[in-house]
């Protein structure tokens, strides 16, 4: 009774990625026309957020609402997990609560893979450690397609803490699989030193990395990076890597600016670029709903999916 999983962009075929973006576009039109897009078959989906994330959880809930699915929330605190239950036992329990699919966010890389192994049915990764955040990348792809009219042949600059970013990994795989040029930009401590196997080139200098870029993706800078000594100060980072009204000029004139949120205004991005006409940041939020709908619909497109008898 294995359904389809959305665990990582890295392991998804190019065709499936394209299909998910297409379905999302169709669902978006349907929702904008009819107000919702209910599927004939009702489904019950568990939302397991072991790591706090209001925005991603709300996005999944909205997606489920539009499809007419029911969601059941399960968060890390106040649950059996704080009573010492292992992830395996939590997953097995939810399987026997007859949930039909799981959406999981967890601070450990690979937690979604583990969940899929024990759940035995469809699992959507909503962010696992530093590994991947596939639905974020799918939403970003839909946004790029809408704003640039194409999803291929573009120059994509991903700026910031790539090493600690599951968004960067998912986007790098997705956009390179679809035939775009991906560049990572950031300080030596925050970009992959073994970048040859990740489908992207690495630039330590912001301007040369941004040169001619069609899409500029900023990543959120976490405070822990200062605490663990990977950066000397916020000021140093801002001086070298902030995407702002001056530095954005290195990119192509029609470049769009993206950010997975939440924003640190004045750190990785300034107000001008975050709020200006080139900003696609709020489109990303909205499109996140439609790709999550697409994922929730697609995982059930298999005859083998069934709940426990």
């Amino acid at each position, binding site marked *: 009774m294995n359904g389809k999983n959305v665990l990582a962009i890295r392991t998804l075929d190019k065709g499936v990625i394209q299909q998910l973006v297409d379905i999302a576009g169709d669902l978006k039109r349907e929702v904008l026309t009819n107000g919702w897009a209910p599927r004939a078959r009702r489904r019950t989906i568990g939302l397991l957020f072991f790591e706090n994330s209001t925005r991603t959880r709300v996005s999944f809930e909205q997606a489920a609402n539009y499809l007419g699915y029911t969601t059941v929330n399960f968060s890390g605190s106040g649950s059996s997990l704080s009573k010492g239950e292992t992830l395996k036992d939590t997953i097995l329990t939810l399987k026997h609560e007859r949930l039909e699919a799981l959406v999981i966010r967890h601070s450990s*890389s690979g937690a979604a893979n583990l969940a899929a192994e024990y759940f035995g049915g469809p699992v959507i990764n909503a962010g696992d450690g530093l590994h991947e955040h596939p639905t974020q990348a799918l939403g970003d792809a839909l946004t790029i397609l809408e704003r640039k009219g194409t999803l291929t042949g573009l120059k994509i600059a991903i700026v910031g803490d790539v090493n600690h970013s599951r968004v960067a990994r998912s986007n790098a795989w997705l956009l390179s699989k679809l035939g775009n040029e991906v560049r990572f930009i950031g300080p030596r401590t925050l970009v992959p030193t073994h970048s040859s*196997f990740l489908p992207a080139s690495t630039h330590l200098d912001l301007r040369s990395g941004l040169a001619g870029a069609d899409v500029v993706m900023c990543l959120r800078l976490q405070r822990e990076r200062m605490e663990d000594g990977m950066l000397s100060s916020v000021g140093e980072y801002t001086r070298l890597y902030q995407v702002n009204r001056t530095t954005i000029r290195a990119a192509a004139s029609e470049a769009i600016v993206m950010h997975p949120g939440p924003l640190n205004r004045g750190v990785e991005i300034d107000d001008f670029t975050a709020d200006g006409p080139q900003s696609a940041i709020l489109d990303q939020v909205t499109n996140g709903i439609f790709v999550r709908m697409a994922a929730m619909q697609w995982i059930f497109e298999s005859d083998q999916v069934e709940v426990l008898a």
Partner: protein
Amino acid sequence: MKTLFKGGRILDPSQELDIFGSVMVEDGQVVEIGPEVDERGLDEIYSCNGLWITPGLVDMHVHLREPGQEKRETIKTGTQAAAAGGFTNICCMPNTTPPLDNSALIDFILDKAASPDAGGIFVSPVGALTHKNQGQTVADLSSLKRAGIVAASDDGNPTQNSLVMARAMEFCHQLDLPVLVHCEDTALSAGTSMNDGATAAMLGLKGMPRSAEEIMVMRNCVLAMNTGCDIHILRVSTWGGVEMVRQFKHLGAPVTCEVCPHHFFFTDEAVGEFDPNFKTTPPLRTEVDIDIILQALQDGTIDCIASDHSPYAPFEVEVPFDQAPFGMAGLESAVAATLTALTDKGILSPLETVRKLSTRPAEILRLDAGTLKPGGTPVAQVTLIDPHVEWTYDVQRTFSKGKNSPFHGINFQGKAVLTYCGNEVYRDPRFSNERFETPSF
């Protein structure tokens, strides 16, 4: 009581012996080795055609987990696993609960290992280098030595403070105790769970840099050079670490080292999609490291092969990769993995293979083991190896409680099929009964 191991390839590195012949054991001792032995008055015969007859094998790096961690392994199950793996001598590491830092615990281990329901092999305990294995103050090593430890070690909690390590080496030098060092700079390795490389970056797992290992290999070699204390580098895994050992040996430092089968059998890519059975420290490395390790095995820079048998309870391993414990069960796969990856591929000759699995570790720890010489061991210790048998490793068929093995499902060529330690302590089902005869009179 006369037992004959008849007509096999006798491989005894302690005598540089590689001949076809038989080994006679009488009243628990080897009495005669040669192409022709007197076969009169035999009580039992093992026909060894097609097999190697070797000294009982020695694994100097085993975690038996008892006392305190019996959910992972016990002295009983661990010694049974060792016997099944071909070993007649193993050394158990001190990072138990509590750690082996006092003589009462050494007595406990030796008593348990000698009890009739254990595996029937010899266990040589390794004492904690520091009190409570905490790396702060040197343990009572002379009492521990009197109680029976054969070495001292910081395995499981590598000593960070260089002054503490220097002091410990001075004490151990005086007591003629080798120090088995776990080389890891824990500031560099904190929070990491696999080799710092391509696979780690793809999977979003924090990578353990090779410098974390190499800095401590270097430090410990320097301290050994300065104190004169014999040290043994536990499971070297990087090409840089191997080269440092080579250089320090060249300089005359009293240094030996070992490698584990998983470090020459797998690269970090084997982690695949977050399989915690491939998580260990130091981590699985790369092809470049394996190339240098194989060279170093050939030229003797790497002295011996040890399993670093680190069993865990299944529920400890069925967790996300970064939360899984470091370590792999290895007693029952070490010999087969060595035969498959090294001997069968011509990296090591049969005699050198046996040296690294028996004679050399016995020399490093001054054990009465690793030889077929009459009187060379307290009781006759013989392992029979079938170098050609093909079989598939299955963790469900192992004696160890630890099922956390990277070798599950791997096809091996070669296996220890009979282990003899004063008497028969393990016979593989594949070692057919036809090979075992009780002559009638």
